[in-house]
C-alpha cells in the first residue's frame, strides 16, 4: 500500500514525495543537511530547539522541519539567508547558556594542542601505551618536552584554582620514557609512499617534527642539518643536566628511523642553495632556527671574555674548550641566561651572578629553573642593566651596571625598565655571558627576497607556515622568533600539514573548529571547585643542589608508576566527554556561531557523578528534553523531568535527587544516547582493576564496529566502540531487534572486556566470571582487537 505522492518545491527543486513525510526526512533523502538538536527518530517531534527551522510559503513565521509534514504544492526554503541567520541565532542563544569547555584549557594553551586530558586520563587508567600514542599524534618529542618544556599548559591548568596544577609535563615524561627505554618503542603507522619529496632545512625540533608527520603521510623526506648532529637548540642550546644527550639521541632516532634521510653538515647558502632545493623537491620547509645572539650594545663588549650565551652553550656541547673565569656575570632573564649561569657553575666558576633589568615576575625563564639556580647558589640581581665592560689588558676587570626601575607598560604588557640616574655601580668580573635574546640569520634566504619583510625577517603565516613563495614553508624560531620547543614542534606539524595540502593542490589552510569555552561566558573561579578535594601534587625525585651543581648529571629523576597514576588522578577533566560527537559543536561550526554574541546570565550547576554509569552536567544541558522523552515515552520510566520555568528551566532526576539516588532509573543509558551534547555522558571506565573502577573518563576518538550484544539471548544490535585496542563504549544501533534500545547489562556492564586475558575477568559487582574471556569472545563473535 503506497502512500499518496505529492509534488513539492524544495529549494527550487520540484520533487515528488510521499505525502506525510516530514520536511526533515525529505531533506535527508535529498542530501540536504538540516541541523537539529531536539529531534530523535525514536521520538515524536517536539519542537524545542528550533534549529531545524525552514520557511514554508504561506506559513506564519518559521516552521520546524522535524514536525512539519509535506503537502501537495508546498514551497519550502531550507537554506536561504533568512533561515540560516535564524538558525545561527538559535545556536548562539543556546550557546550563551551552554556552560562547558569542549576542550580543556591545558590543550588549548599548548601550542601543539596535545590531547592532554586524554593522555593524563589514560595514565590514570594505566593505559600507558595508548597515552603515548595520543601524545605522539601531536608531539614526536615527548621525552624531550617532558624535560625542557616551560609547560604553559600547567599555568592554564584549572587545578591551580584548587591547589596546584597537575604535573602534566612530568606525566608526559613518565609515559614517554617508559616507551623510549622499553627497547621496542612506538612507531606510528605509515601510509604507502606517494613518491613526492620534501626537503627540510634544519634538523631541530621544528624540522624533525615536520619530517615525522610528512614521512607518516608517505612523503620522502630529506633533512639538511647544518651542524654535526641533528637536534638543533635542543642539543646545542640546553645543557646536559636538563636534556641528557642519550635521551635526545634516542628520541631523534624514533623519528629518523621511520625512513627519513638526514644529511648533516649541510648549511644553506654554503653547501646548497634554496633555489636548487626548490627545483629538486616538491616542497621545502625552512626551519633553520634563530641562532644569532643579540649584542649587549655596551662599551667593551667585544672582549674575548664577553661571551654569547647561546654560543657558550653550543661550544660546551661541541666539546670545545671554553675559557671561563672564577667570577661570571650573566646578563639576561631567559632560560638561556639561567642555563649559562648553571653551566658556568658546573664548569668551575666560583661566583655566578645573573643580572636582569626587570624583576623576577617579568623573568621569561621558567620559575622552577630560577628556583633551581638559586638553590645551587647563583645570585640573581634584579633591576640592573649593564652599561660597560671594563678590561684590564687580556682579562676583564669589572662590569658597570645601572639600577633600573619599572615604568610604563610596553607592547608585551610588561613594565618597561627605566635607568635610575646616578645609580651606576661596578661589579668585579672575569667572564661576562650575554643572553639577552636571539634572532634568525636570514642571510641564506636573501636569494629569494620575497621571503623576507623589510626588516629582513622571514614572513609567513604562523598557523600554516606558508610563505610568499609557493611550495616553500617555514616553521620554528625562524618563523616565530625565538620561542619554546613545543611551539617549534607545533610549527613543524602545521608546516607538514600545509605541505600535504599543497601537494594535493589545495591552498594551505589552518583548520579551525568551534570551541565552547567557559571563560568566554563567565570566568571560572576557585569557588567553582570549593567541594574539590585538596590533593598535593606528586613531588619528583631530584638530585640535591650539592650533588648536582658540579656535575652535568640529569637533575630530575622521573616519576614512579604509582606516582604517575596518582598524579594523573588529580586531573579535573575539564574537557567534554562528548567532544567528538557533540551536535551543538558541529552546527556551531557549520553556522559560524559565536557563543558570546548574546552574553548574559549563565546558569552554573554542579556536575552530578552520583550515578554509577552516567555523568550529568546540567550546565551543558540545552533543554531539548530528548532524555526526558526517551525515558518516559520509549522506556516508560520517567526518571527525568523538568524543574523550574523560563530561563531557569532545568532537567533533573525526579524530585531533584542526585541521579544515583533516583529510584526508578534502570540504567538503560537511553538518556545518554539521546543527549545531543555533553550534558549526559557515559562514564567510560578503562581503568578497571580487580573489578573496581579506578580511573578517569577519557574523551577519545573511537572506531566503531557493528555487532550484537551477547549478554542474553535477545541479541540486540549494538555498536562496539574502540580506541586502539581499548573497548571504550557499547552503544545502541537503530536496527532489529532492539531498534536503538538497550539495557544496563549490554551498555554498561562490559568493562571486563578491557581486562587482559591473562587476568581473571570480574563483573562490575566484583564477582568472578567463570568462563575465560577468550572463550566468551569466540562464542559471541564480538569483534575485539587484540
Amino acid at each position, binding site marked *: 500500500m503506497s502512500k499518496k505522492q505529492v509534488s513539492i518545491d524544495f529549494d527550487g527543486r520540484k520533487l515528488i514525495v510521499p505525502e506525510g513525510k516530514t520536511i526533515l526526512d525529505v531533506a535527508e533523502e535529498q542530501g540536504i543537511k538540516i541541523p537539529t538538536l531536539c529531534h530523535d527518530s525514536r521520538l515524536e517531534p517536539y*519542537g524545542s530547539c528550533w534549529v531545524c527551522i525552514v520557511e514554508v510559503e504561506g506559513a506564519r513565521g518559521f516552521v520546524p522541519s522535524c514536525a512539519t509534514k509535506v503537502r501537495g504544492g508546498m514551497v519550502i526554503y531550507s537554506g536561504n539567508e533568512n533561515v540560516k541567520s535564524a538558525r545561527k*541565532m538559535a545556536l548562539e542563544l543556546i550557546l*550563551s547558556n551552554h556552560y562547558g569547555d569542549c576542550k580543556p584549557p591545558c590543550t588549548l594553551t599548548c601550542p601543539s594542542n596535545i590531547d592532554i586530558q586524554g593522555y593524563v586520563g589514560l595514565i590514570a587508567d594505566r593505559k600507558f601505551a595508548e597515552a603515548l600514542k595520543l601524545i605522539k599524534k601531536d608531539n614526536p618529542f615527548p621525552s624531550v618536552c617532558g624535560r625542557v618544556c616551560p609547560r604553559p599548559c600547567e599555568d592554564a591548568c584549572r587545578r591551580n584554582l584548587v591547589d596546584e596544577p597537575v604535573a602534566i609535563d612530568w606525566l608526559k615524561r613518565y609515559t614517554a620514557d617508559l616507551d623510549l627505554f622499553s627497547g621496542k618503542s612506538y612507531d606510528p603507522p605509515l601510509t604507502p609512499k606517494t613518491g613526492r619529496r620534501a626537503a627540510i632545512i634544519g634538523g631541530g625540533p621544528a624540522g624533525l617534527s615536520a619530517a615525522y608527520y610528512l614521512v607518516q603521510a608517505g612523503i620522502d623526506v630529506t633533512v639538511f642539518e647544518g651542524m654535526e648532529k641533528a637536534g638543533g637548540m635542543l642539543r646545542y642550546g640546553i645543557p646536559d643536566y636538563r636534556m641528557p644527550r642519550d635521551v635526545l639521541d634516542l628520541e631523534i632516532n624514533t623519528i629518523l628511523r621511520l625512513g627519513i634521510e638526514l644529511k648533516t653538515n649541510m648549511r644553506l647558502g654554503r653547501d646548497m642553495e634554496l633555489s636548487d632545493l626548490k627545483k629538486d623537491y616538491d616542497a621545502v620547509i625552512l626551519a633553520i632556527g634563530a641562532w644569532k645572539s643579540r649584542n649587549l650594545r655596551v662599551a667593551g663588549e667585544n672582549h674575548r671574555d664577553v661571551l654569547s650565551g647561546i654560543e657558550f652553550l653550543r661550544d660546551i656541547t661541541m666539546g670545545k674548550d671554553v675559557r671561563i673565569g672564577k667570577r661570571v656575570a650573566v646578563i639576561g632573564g631567559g632560560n638561556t641566561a639561567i642555563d649559562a649561569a648553571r653551566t658556568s657553575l658546573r664548569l668551575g666558576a666560583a661566583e655566578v651572578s645573573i643580572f636582569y633589568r626587570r624583576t623576577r615576575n617579568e623573568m621569561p625563564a621558567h620559575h622552577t629553573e630560577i628556583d633551581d639556580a638559586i638553590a645551587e647558589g647563583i645570585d640573581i640581581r634584579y633591576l640592573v642593566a649593564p652599561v660597560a665592560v671594563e678590561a684590564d689588558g687580556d682579562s676583564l676587570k669589572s662590569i658597570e651596571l645601572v639600577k633600573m626601575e619599572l615604568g610604563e607598560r610596553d607592547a608585551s604588557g610588561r613594565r618597561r625598565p627605566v635607568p635610575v640616574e646616578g645609580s651606576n655601580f661596578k661589579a668585579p668580573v672575569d667572564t661576562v655571558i650575554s643572553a639577552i635574546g636571539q634572532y634568525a640569520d636570514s642571510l641564506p634566504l636573501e636569494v629569494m627576497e620575497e621571503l623576507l619583510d623589510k626588516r629582513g625577517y622571514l614572513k609567513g603565516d604562523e598557523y600554516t607556515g606558508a610563505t610568499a613563495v609557493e611550495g616553500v614553508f617555514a616553521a620554528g624560531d625562524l618563523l616565530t622568533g625565538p620561542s619554546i620547543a613545543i611551539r617549534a614542534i607545533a610549527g613543524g606539524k602545521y608546516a607538514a600539514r600545509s605541505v600535504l595540502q599543497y601537494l594535493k593542490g589545495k591552498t594551505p589552510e589552518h583548520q579551525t573548529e568551534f570551541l565552547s569555552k567557559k571563560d568566554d561566558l563567565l570566568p571560572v573561579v576557585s569557588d567553582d571547585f570549593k567541594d574539590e578535594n585538596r590533593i598535593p601534587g606528586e613531588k619528583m625525585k631530584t638530585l640535591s643542589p650539592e650533588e648536582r651543581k658540579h656535575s652535568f648529571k640529569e637533575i630530575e629523576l622521573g616519576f614512579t608508576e604509582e606516582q604517575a597514576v596518582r598524579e594523573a588522578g588529580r586531573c579535573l577533566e575539564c574537557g567534554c566527554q562528548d567532544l567528538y560527537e557533540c551536535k551543538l559543536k558541529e552546527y556551531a561550526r557549520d553556522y559560524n556561531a559565536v557563543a558570546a554574541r548574546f552574553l548574559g546570565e549563565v546558569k552554573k550547576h554542579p556536575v552530578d557523578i552520583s550515578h554509577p554509569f552516567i555523568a550529568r552536567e546540567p550546565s551543558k544541558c540545552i533543554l531539548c528534553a530528548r532524555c526526558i522523552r526517551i525515558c518516559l515515552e520509549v522506556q516508560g520510566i520517567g526518571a527525568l523531568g*523538568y524543574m523550574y520555568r523560563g530561563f531557569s*528551566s532545568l532537567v533533573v532526576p525526579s524530585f531533584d535527587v542526585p541521579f544515583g539516588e533516583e529510584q526508578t532509573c534502570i540504567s538503560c543509558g537511553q538518556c545518554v544516547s539521546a543527549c545531543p551534547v555533553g550534558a549526559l555522558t557515559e562514564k567510560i571506565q578503562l581503568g578497571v582493576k580487580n573489578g573496581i573502577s579506578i580511573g578517569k573518563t577519557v574523551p577519545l576518538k573511537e572506531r566503531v564496529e557493528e555487532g550484537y550484544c551477547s549478554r542474553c539471548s535477545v541479541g540486540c544490535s549494538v555498536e562496539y566502540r574502540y580506541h586502539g585496542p581499548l573497548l571504550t563504549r557499547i552503544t545502541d544501533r537503530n536496527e532489529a531487534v532492539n531498534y536503538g534500545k538497550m539495557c544496563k547489562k549490554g551498555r554498561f556492564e562490559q568493562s571486563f572486556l578491557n581486562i587482559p586475558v591473562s587476568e581473571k575477568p570480574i563483573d562490575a559487582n566484583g564477582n568472578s566470571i567463570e568462563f575465560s574471556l577468550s572463550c566468551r569472545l569466540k562464542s559471541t563473535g564480538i569483534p575485539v582487537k587484540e
Partner: protein
Amino acid sequence: MPEYEIIIGFGSCGIAAGARRAFDIFAEEAEKSSAKISVKPTGCIGACHREPLVGVRESDGKQYLYGEVDEKRAGEIINRHIHGGEVIRDWLVKPDYPYFTKQKKIVLANSGIIDPENMDEYIKVKGYKALKKVLFEMTPEELIEDIKASGLRGRGGAGFPTGLKWGFARNSMGDKKYMICNADEGDPGAFMDRSVLEGDPHAVLEGMIIGAYAIGADEGFIYVRAEYPLAIKRLNIAIAQAKAKGLLGDSIMNSGFSFNVHIKEGAGAFVCGEETALMASIEGKRGMPRLRPPYPAVKGLWGAPTNINNVETLANVPAIIRMGGHVYAETGTEKSKGTKVFALAGKIKRGGMVEVPMGTTLREVIFDIGGGIQGDKKFRAVQLGGPSGGCIPGSLLDTPVDYDSLTSTGAIMGSGGMVVMDESTCMVDVARFFLSFTQNESCGKCTFCRIGTKRMLEILERITMGHGGMEDIDKLEELAVKIKVASLCALGQTAPNPVLTTLKYFREEYEDHILRKKCPAKKCKALIRFKVVPENCTGCTLCVRVCPTGSVHGERRQIHEIDPDLCIKCGLCEEACHFDAIEITTGDIKAGVIS
C-alpha cells in the same frame, strides 16, 4: 415584595473596596424589617473606580446607584433614603454618567443586575432560553451556521472565528469530544473574565453547553486559575444549580443530549492560557505548549477532538442565539462583530469594566468613558493586550478597537486589558516590566522564548541602568524580530511586542537612556537624582525624618542637602515635602552610579 431592594456590587472589585461592610449593614436592617428592604449581591457593576456600589430599587421600579458606599454612607442611605424617602443626590452615580452612556452591554448585560448565585434571577432574564432553543429547534450544523453568521471571533486574543472553530471540532471524527472553557486569564491588569464569571456564571455555562452541543462533546472542563476563588465558588454554585434543574448532566431537558462539566483549577502559570499547554495541565502534565498541528480540534485533550473557547466568547453565545446571529452582527465593524469588554486600568480617572461596540475608538474609551488621565496629566500611551500586546501612542488614539486595526498598530486586541499611561511612565521601563513578566512565565521549552527573551530583558535592564549602548537597540530588534517568528507558541511569538511597539513609537526615550543617560519620565532609578531646591526649602526637617537611609541632612531652618551616595531614590522625601523643595533631575549623572 419589599419596598426597597438593595443590590450590592459583590465582585472581587467591590469586595476589595469594602462592599462586605456595607452589605452587613443593609443585611442587618433587612433582618429588622424584611417587608421594608431586601438585600442581594450582584457581580461587578462596572464602575470599579466608584466601588463599593450600592443600587437601590424602589417598588415602583425607580432605581438609584450610590457610589463609594462605606459604613457611614450605608447608614445614611438607610436613614435618609429608606426611612426618609430622600434620594441623596450628591452620592449618586447618575444614569447619564458618561462612563455608562457610551457602553453597549451584551456580555455584561446581567452583571451588576442579577444575583450571580441565584439561578432563578438568571432564568428571569431569559437565561437558558438559548439552550432550550438550540436543543429543540436547531441542529448542531444550524447552530454553527448561526454563530458563523454572528461573526463572533475568539475573545481570548487571537480572534479566530468561533463558528469556524466549532465546525472543525464538529467535523472531527471521534466518539469522545471535549469542550473546554479557557478561564486562565493571566495578563497583568486584565480582569474581564473574572468579572464575567463572578457576575454572570450561568451565561458562560450556557454558552459552554451550547458549544458542546455544536461539536458533539459530552464532557467539558472549565480551566480557571486558583487565584479566582470567588469565580470558582460561583461557578461551582452555578454548576450545582444547573445540574439540579436538569440543565446540565445526562439528557439535558430530556433532549437526549448529555454534557458534564468539571472545574480544573490552574496553579497560575501564564502559559497555561495557551490551549495546548492548558490541555497538558488538565491531563496532569507540566503546562507546556506543544507543536500544532495537530490542532485541538483534531487531537486535543487525551487525544480526543477538543474545542477551546475563552470565557467572554462563550458569554456572547446565549445572547447571539437569542437575538440571532445576523442581529448580533449588526453591532461592530465589518470584520469584528459585537462588543468587546475591556478592563480599563492605569492612570485613568474612571477605571473599571467597559463593554463597547467594536469600532469604538481608543479615544472614546479612554477620554469619554474613562474621563481621561488622572490629575489631568498628559497622556503618554495605552497598553493593550498585556504582555503580548503593545503600547499605542497619542497619535493613534483614533484607532478603532477591532482586531485588524489594533494589530496594524503593532499591538493586539488581546483579551481586553487596557492600561493607560501618563507622562510619568517610562516606556523603556514598561517594556522591561512586560518582558520580565513573559520571561518569568516562559515555560522554558523553546530556545527563542527561553533564552531570547531573557537576553532581551537583560538588554533592557542594561538600558534602564544607564549601561546600554546604541548597538543594544539593534540587538533588541534583531532578537525581537526572530523571536516572533521562531517561537513555539503565542507567548514567545508575542513577547517582543511591547519592545517593538515602544521602539517604534518611543524610540527617542531609548536614545535618551542610552546617549544622554536620561530617563525623561524620571522613573529609572539609576538615571535620576534627588535634590533639594534651596529657594523652596524651609528647613522643616520633615524630609530628614522620613529618609530611611539618613541621606538627607540639615538642621532646623537650614537648607537641607541630600547625600547622593546614600540616597536610594525611594522618593519618600519628595512625598513628605510640603514646599516642592525636592526635585528629581535626570541626565546629569554618570551611568550606573547607583546600582
